[in-house]
């Protein structure tokens, strides 16, 4: 009966939540039926006393944990694992994961929990079911890594790498890849350690071969994981560093380019930043740098590197570049975090100085300011801003005052008036 219910329920869920891209009109359709969270433990129709007490125990554990009463939760948790003895239910898998999660979380918060306690729980739960073996393995190695036990972590990961079990689900496949990648990351860390030792006493050129081995081991998996769409910042950084150490510029550049420009990847600003840094390290021509930064500008107009971008543009001789620089800096000033930044305002001043050498500079500025003129005054040039600027950074006040007339020529703003009163 329960099974049947559950089955029906699942079917309902399937029908309810077709998240497929069905874009028919919403009007006339019925109102949203929000799938609400199911309570953690539902009373089933036919539950034995055992299930009932387990359910109540779980409820108490949950309450205690949510209110951060860890010792109370631990006290209840000593009796809860008996749910694992339950052979009647087909939901044993979920209980195993539940027990693992709750017990590790409680251990995190008990003052005297030891590494052995953790090991017991990780090891027990790891081997209690095949479906969550990889996940718990990964978490276990994370735990070891966080506590500085890199060697142990690597050992665990290597063991998990060689673990095979029948048919693999998509999630399992991804987890396998992650395990490989993290193992390689640990290889890299060891490699880096050796490199560091090498650089400290460079007279001994001993373990070069071992170091290279680590590189080879790491590179295979890192290269593999970089093929999958995702965010792989730590992996690509370590991979590129190793490649650069072995002077493989081309490969490094290729990897970075793929990471930045592959459309299946998420638009990661860091991808462009890494590419830019790589190019800059190897003294690439300015044109290339500008090109990379242009892509970054489209993605994140408020990025720190935009300062560099505008200075690069300013250095170039082309007229259009200066106009571009003006656009970049104005856009930066749109954002809250740059509004009172001295450097940006100074850049703006410099750009406008440079622009003023041209004939039609006023129209260019007007053009850029057209879309901003109705809200920029309120954003930058109110008496409140003047007050604040004069208190915090009088120099900024000067720079801004000098630019008011140029940026908003057709309006009288209170920013300067306030300056007079506060100056006196």
């Amino acid at each position, binding site marked *: 009966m329960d099974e049947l219910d559950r089955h029906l329920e699942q079917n309902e*869920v399937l029908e309810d*939540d077709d998240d*497929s*891209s069905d*874009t028919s009109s*919403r009007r006339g*359709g*019925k109102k*949203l*039926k929000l*799938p*609400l969270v*199911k309570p953690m433990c539902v009373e089933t129709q036919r539950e034995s006393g055992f299930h009932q007490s387990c359910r*109540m125990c779980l409820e*108490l554990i*949950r309450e205690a944990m*949510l209110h951060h*009463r*860890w*010792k109370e939760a*631990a*006290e209840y948790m*000593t009796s809860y*694992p008996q749910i694992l*003895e339950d052979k009647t239910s087909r939901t044993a898998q979920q209980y195993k*994961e*539940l027990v*693992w*999660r*709750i017990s*590790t979380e409680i251990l995190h918060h*008990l*003052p*005297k*929990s030891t590494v052995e*306690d953790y090991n*017991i729980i990780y090891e027990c739960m790891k081997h*209690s079911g095949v479906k969550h073996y990889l996940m718990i393995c990964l*978490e276990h190695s994370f*735990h070891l890594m*966080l506590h*500085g036990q890199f060697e142990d972590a690597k050992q665990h990961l290597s063991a998990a790498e060689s673990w095979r079990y029948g048919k693999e689900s998509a999630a399992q496949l991804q987890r396998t890849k992650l395990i490989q*990648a*993290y193992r390689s990351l640990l290889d890299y860390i060891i490699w880096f350690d050796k490199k560091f*030792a090498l650089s400290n006493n460079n007279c001994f050129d001993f373990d070069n071969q071992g170091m290279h081995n680590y590189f080879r081991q790491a590179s295979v998996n890192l290269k593999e994981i970089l093929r999958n769409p*995702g*965010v792989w910042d730590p992996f690509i950084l370590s991979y590129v560093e190793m490649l650069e150490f072995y002077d493989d510029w081309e490969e490094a550049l290729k990897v970075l380019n793929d990471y930045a420009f592959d459309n*299946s*990847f*998420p*638009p*990661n*600003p*860091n991808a462009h*930043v890494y590419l830019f840094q790589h190019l800059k390290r190897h003294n690439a021509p300015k044109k290339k740098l500008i090109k990379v930064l242009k892509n970054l500008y489209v993605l994140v107009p408020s990025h720190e590197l935009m300062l560099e971008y505008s200075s690069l543009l300013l250095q170039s001789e082309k007229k259009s570049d200066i106009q571009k620089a003006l656009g970049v800096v104005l856009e930066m000033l*749109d954002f*809250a*975090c740059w509004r009172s930044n001295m450097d940006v305002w100074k850049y703006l001043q410099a750009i406008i100085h440079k622009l003023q050498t041209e004939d039609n500079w006023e129209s260019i500025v007007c053009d850029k300011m057209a879309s901003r003129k109705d*809200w920029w005054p*309120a954003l930058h040039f109110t008496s409140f801003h003047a007050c604040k600027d004069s208190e915090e950074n009088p120099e900024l006040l000067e720079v801004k005052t000098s630019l008011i007339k140029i940026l908003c020529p057709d309006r009288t703003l209170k920013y300067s008036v306030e300056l007079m009163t506060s100056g006196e």
Partner: protein
Amino acid sequence: MDYQFPHQLFPSFYDHGPPDLVLKHSAGSWGCYDSVTPQGGPGPLSSWKIMSRHEARGETWCHTEPVPVPLLSPKTAFLGHLQPPDPLDATKHLQNFFTDHCQDAFGSMSDILGENFNFQFGKRKERHRQDSVSMWRIKNHLDVLKLNVCQQVYRSTTMTRYCSLLSSVVPDIPTELLSSLLYKELQEQRDRVQFCEAATGGALAFVPFSEGGGSTSQHGCLLYPGGQGLDRLYFHKVALQQHSRTSSCVEASSSDPVSFQLKAPVRQISCSALFDDCCVAVRSDHFCGVWRFSERREPRLLQVINSGEVTTCVSVSPHVLGEVLVASESGAANLWTVGKGMQKVRLEHSNLYFNAKSPWRWCEFSAHPRVMLYADRTGVELTDMRVSPCSGHTLFRISSSSECRRGERLILTRYLGDIHAFHHLVTTQYSAYIMDERFPCVPMLKCDHMMQSPPVFAHMIPGSDAAAGETRTDKVLLGSHRSQEVTLLQYSGGRLQPCFSRGPPQALLTPKGSLKHLPVQIPHRLDTTTNRLSAPAAGVTCIQRKAGRGASSGESMCILQLTEAGDIFYQILEHKLPDRDTSGGPAAENQRAKKLFVQRKAAEQPPPEAQLVASDTPGCEDAIGPTQEATIGVETPEKEQPRLSRSAVSSSAGSEAESRRRLDAGMKDGDVAADECRSQQQTAVKLSKNTSAAWKRWLQILIRKSSEKKPRSLQHFTIRSKGLLRLSHRDERAASEEESVENLRRALKSCMSKRSLLVNGAASAGAAGVEPVPHPVDTDAWTDPLSQRLTLSWQGEKAWLEWWEEQLGLNHQSKLEDLRRRRRRQKEAKRAAGQRLELSGSFTSSVSYQSALDDFSSSTGWSSATSQGAWSDTDGGGVLSQLESSLKHENRRTATPSTVQSDSPAPSPASTPRTYKRSEPQTPNGRHTLPPSQAQSPGATTASQRRTKRPAEDHLGSLFTAQEDPAQTDPPHSPAAASSSGLRSSQSVLVKTPRGALSTVRGFSQTLSPSLGSQARPGPSQSSQPKKKSRMGF
């Protein structure tokens, strides 16, 4: 520096496509690190620092009180449904409508039909109503129906006929239509109670005023709706004050609030302050208004707009004062520049990514003043307002890239500008996501908030800037509507470091849960207060006080929660610095060892010691205390034994048992640690005097307020008894008597006012007479056991003891012997008497069999007609008065069998049930095969002879003996037996008509068993058959 982007993000896969994850265990992200990334430390191996996306521990915030404290005194309020209404109640609602608004329901038709009906009493008819039907009977009937009468019993046939004739004609609106509409409405209301999307955003806000520094209080303005329908907007200046080192409270009484009456209930309040100037936008269902105020200036209404559609969101710009985004159910998002007008910035008729069948829309500003977030249930898009054919870039969508679960929907988004200029909060039923608008599609952080109902309120609490090497921890408060939950999430990063959560979510206190910490209320008050306190939440906000202010205080925050009843509750959390509870050194170690030892001892010893320890441990009022669990720990090894042996059969079971045991061990270690931690820091927060006083006051006012309005209810139909009982005529009463009554009244009144007792002297002063000595008690007139016992107890302890022995059947054995002897003698006599008598005897015994059998059956599970047993208990007594007394003291019924026994002469040998029991297993099936006529077999005697073989030592035996005796001792045809007692009559009848076939037995057992209030299964009547059968076996 918000413009910094993390140098490295946590690695994760990026998948397209709809989510298909179904999480089964509902433990959220407890206990996992999710992913890690190396940070900093390029150097030797030991210098590498790894950070995880979910850091195990965060800051410790502790409550100062175990309950939230009410801020304002309770006002009268309308409470909506607490339980979601059942659409099937539509008929009840219809009935109410018809009775309360009959003019609306039947107006027009009743005008037409009215001419043909005459409701006047009597036969007389007016001239123009010659043809009308006289309906005064019906009218009388209807008048009574207005009272609370039983509808099933009180009915009239005429009425029913008229009903069937006219019911389809009379209502102005066809009932079918009305009921189906009502049904739909109720359904919608139920959905709304379960999840109210109108309340999204929350109608409570706090605007802090800039502080001159040095003072220990945080001043600000609290904005909240009040009034009966939450349609009055209040601007109330409040202050979070700290009185001493420990206690702090919110001071609200210093100034009177400024208020504005609105036309509709306030749904959402959004405000933002720029340079001490605050702009407040208020949303009700169709209106939006904007106010402006500052610390010195009174609030001033700037503009109100009426949008045709239902507005779902209002959001004030944090960049430019006076810019407001308004979204409505039409799918439009408008930029409203106050004083200048509206500009449509986006219009979507359908949902963004898939059809979620929801008209709900939401807008928020972003880091760029001209880029806004446009959200619906399926996702969030960044929209540039300057581009005219508006288009969006996905910021967030329900998909597998953000590891959404199946069925997950977006509930709320919030711009977290105060925490990080580029961060947005997105909440769903399951999780809270921190999104960075510079890196759309991939959540920076995902936390499972573990709330029961979806979070519709959010409040950000920016962390105080990093103190010496500590990472700054920002907090987000999530609040749910129906279940009042408030959850605190902590996270860090977003600048140089990637975002990572700190510690698991923490649930805060709810008004609902506060009653158990308060003094106990009497039930009907408890009802009122429970209802009031469990009203759904309507908003959450926080007053933050940074560290370093004043002399003594650390960081603290005060979380305010508004309920739909208009009450505001606050709770204060204090930051506990981690380095305080450092305990080390040999002393602590020693103590720990001692503690351990004590624990082990407690575990080894039997319960009494454990009990002692249990009473020591504080705050464990729940079912499984720590010591109980310790005893469980002792038991486990034995328990484990069979399990392990079982595991020899299936290896997997064995490994699991093993793992469980090891897990147990692990947890036990932790437990010891926990115990120690308890001994070190007393975390149980006590209710302070101020708080309990505040609550007491609040509850008193609430009770007073609620007692003013009584709920409407129908009067009960009562027979008027006013004229029935009357005192003798007023004039006849003597004047002096009148006076004494008056005096008495006065005395009573004064006593009541003094709260003293009205003592006898004062009361009987007027009519003081000598009380006559009562007559001596005639002990023979009182034959019930209690009286007997009392009488006997005057004779001394021995008599009393004997009586008890008899009563409890302690002298059972000797009595039995006696009985057997007598029976034997009787049987011999019977044998001489002949066959006929024996037959009747067999029948009587069959009745007693049955009762015996039934009594047995309750233990054997064969058939359970316990009532029969009960009946026979009372029956056997033979004395009417005794019967009555035993019926009166029903609870003593169980004791009656022995009473019976002692009383009865107990002449006949009887343990028939045993015989029966022995023979029963031989014929377990085919009970119904035998015709009842054959049942009168003479086998009973043999059966009864066998009885003696078994020692009848138990109560039951004696009971049956007793029960049997009236039938056997009374002459079979005695009419006296039938008349002696109503209850006994059944047996007597049986005795009288021995050949009356089994049907009589059946009939009686059937009629009797329900009357005795039993839950007899068909058992009794059927069970009489197998008896015969069994006896046939002989």
